[in-house]
C-alpha cells in the first residue's frame, strides 16, 4: 500500500517536473542552434554555442548589466526583508485597531496596476534627482504590502511562548525580534528572499523608465534590446536568457535548504 502510494507521488512529481523543465531544456538547446533553427522549433543540440556566445559578447556590455542587476537585487532584497519583516512582525505581534486599519490601507496599494502610477512616480523621482540611479529602482519596492502581508501571515504560526521566554531572559523588544523571531522564521525569510530577489532581478517596466543611460541598464533591459530588431537572432537571445536565469536559480539552490530543515534546529 505504502509503495503504491509513493509510486503515485513520484509519478505525479515526475510529470510535473517534466512539464516544468521542458521549456528550460528548450532554452538550453536553443543556445546551441542558429536563429532560424530555433524559429523552426528544432529540438536537438546544434554546434553554434560558441558562435552565439561570441556574438553576444560583441553585441552587449554584459559586465555592466550584471553589476547593475546584482547591485539592485541584493540591496533591494536585504532592505525588503528587513523592513517588511519588521512591519509584518509589528502588525501581528503588537496588534491594535489603529495598526489593523493602517495595514488594510497599505494592502490597497498592491491592488493598483503599475501602469497607472508609473507617471506620477516618475515625476516624483525626477524631482528627487534620483532618476538613472540604482536607488530609483530599489526604493519604490523596498517595502511592499505584499511582503508585509506574507510576513504577517507567517507570524500567525510563530510560537509566542518564545517571546515570553525571551522577556524572562531580559531581552528588550528589538532584541526579541532580532535574536528570537528572525532565526526562528528562517524558512519564511528564505522564501521571501527568493521571491524578492526574483522580483528585483526580473523587474522590467520601471527600470526601463527610470534608468536612462546605457551604462545603468539592468540585464533584462539589455536582453530585451537584443530581441528588439526586426529580425532578432534568437540564438544570441537564448544564450542571454540562460545567463539571466542562472543567478535566480543559484539563489534558489542556496536558500531552498531552509525548506528542508524546518523549525527543528533553528529554535534551539
Amino acid at each position, binding site marked *: 500500500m505504502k509503495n503504491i502510494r509513493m509510486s503515485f507521488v513520484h509519478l505525479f*512529481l515526475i510529470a510535473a517536473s517534466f512539464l*516544468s523543465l521542458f521549456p528550460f531544456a528548450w532554452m538550453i538547446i536553443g543556445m546551441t542552434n542558429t536563429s532560424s533553427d530555433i524559429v523552426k522549433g528544432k529540438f536537438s543540440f546544434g554546434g553554434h554555442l560558441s558562435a552565439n556566445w561570441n556574438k553576444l559578447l560583441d553585441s552587449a556590455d554584459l559586465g555592466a548589466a550584471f553589476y547593475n542587476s546584482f547591485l539592485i537585487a541584493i540591496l533591494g532584497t536585504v532592505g525588503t526583508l528587513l523592513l517588511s519583516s519588521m512591519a509584518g512582525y*509589528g502588525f501581528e505581534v503588537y496588534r491594535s485597531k489603529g495598526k489593523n486599519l493602517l495595514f488594510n490601507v497599505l494592502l490597497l496599494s498592491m491592488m493598483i496596476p503599475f501602469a497607472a*502610477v508609473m507617471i*506620477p512616480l516618475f515625476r516624483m523621482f525626477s524631482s528627487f534627482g534620483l532618476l538613472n540611479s540604482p536607488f530609483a529602482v530599489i526604493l519604490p519596492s523596498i517595502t511592499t504590502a505584499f511582503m508585509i502581508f506574507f510576513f504577517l501571515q507567517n507570524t500567525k*504560526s510563530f510560537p509566542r511562548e518564545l517571546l515570553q521566554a525571551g522577556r524572562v531572559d531580559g531581552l528588550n523588544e528589538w532584541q526579541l525580534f532580532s535574536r528570537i523571531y528572525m532565526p526562528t522564521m528562517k524558512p519564511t525569510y528564505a522564501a521571501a528572499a527568493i521571491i524578492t530577489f526574483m522580483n528585483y532581478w526580473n523587474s522590467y517596466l520601471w527600470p526601463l523608465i527610470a534608468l536612462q543611460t546605457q551604462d545603468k541598464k539592468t540585464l533584462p533591459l539589455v*536582453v530585451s534590446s537584443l530581441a528588439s530588431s526586426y529580425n532578432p537572432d534568437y540564438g544570441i537571445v537564448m544564450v542571454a536568457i540562460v545567463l539571466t536565469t542562472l543567478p535566480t536559480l543559484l539563489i534558489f539552490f542556496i536558500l*531552498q535548504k531552509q525548506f528542508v530543515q524546518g523549525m527543528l534546529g533553528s529554535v534551539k
Partner: protein
Amino acid sequence: MGGKTKSSLIGWQFVALPSAIILLFSFYPMVQSLLLSFQSGKGTVYEYVGFANYTRLFSDPVFRQALLNTLLYLIIQVPIMLLLGLVIANFLNIPKLRFKGFYRTAIFLPCVTSLVSYAILFKSIFSIDGIANQMLLNLHLIDEPIAWLMDPVWARIVIILAITWRWTGYNMIFYLSAMQNIDPSVYEAASIDGASKTRQFFRITVPLLKPILLFTAIISTNGTLQLFDEVVNITNGGPGNSTMTISQYIYNLSFVYTPNFGYAATVSYAIVIIVAVLSLIQMKVGGEKR
C-alpha cells in the same frame, strides 16, 4: 494599562518606517492617478471632465470584454493553480521522499524562466503544426489540427495553461516554507491515532496553513486581475479581443493608442475596487478576524 500603551508604542516603531515608505511611493502616486481619472484628453492636453470617464466605462464594450475575460481567468485558473501548488508542496514535504531537491527545483523553474523564451515556446507548441497538435493527432484524439490561438475558447485555455504552468511553483514555495513552521509532532500524534495521510492533509495541514492559503488566494486574485505579460506575449489579446485583459487595455490606452492617461487611470481604479471587494470577501471567508 500603562504596559499595554508601551507595547503599542513599540509596535508602532516596528511598522512606522515601512508604512511611511509605502505611503510615499505607492499612495502618493495613487492619489495623483485618482485625480487624473477625472480628466480626459490626449498626451499632455487635458481637461477636467468630472465623472465622464466613469460613465464611459459602463458603455465601453472593450472594457466589458476585458473584464469578463479577466474574471474568467480568475474563476477557473486561480483555484486550479492553488490546489495544484498545495498538493505538490504536500508531496514534497513527505520526510522520506527521494529526489526532493530535484523536484522542488524543477517545479520552481518556470517562474524564473524568461518570459521571452517561454512566449516563443508556448506559441510554437500551440501553433497549427506544433507539438500539441501532433501529439493529439498521433493519439487519434482529434482528426484535424486545432487552431489553438485563433479560436476564442482554445486561446483562453492556452492562456490559462500558461499562467498555471508559470505560477504553480511560485505558490508552492509559500506553502513549503509555511509547512516548515508546523510542528512535526502534530503529525506523529495523528499517525499514532491512526489518521490516514489524506485525513492528516485536510485535518492538520490545511487548517494550519490557512493564513498562507488566504495570502496566496489574495495575491493570486490580485495577480490575475493585473494579468498582462502572458496575454501580450502569447496571444496579444486576440483573436479579436477574446483574451484581452484589463491590464492590457490600460496599457493600450496609455502607450499603444493615442495616449489618454485619464481614462487609463479610471480603468485602473476599476481594478482597485474589484480587487478590494474580492479580498474583503476572501478575508471574511478565510475567517480573518481583523
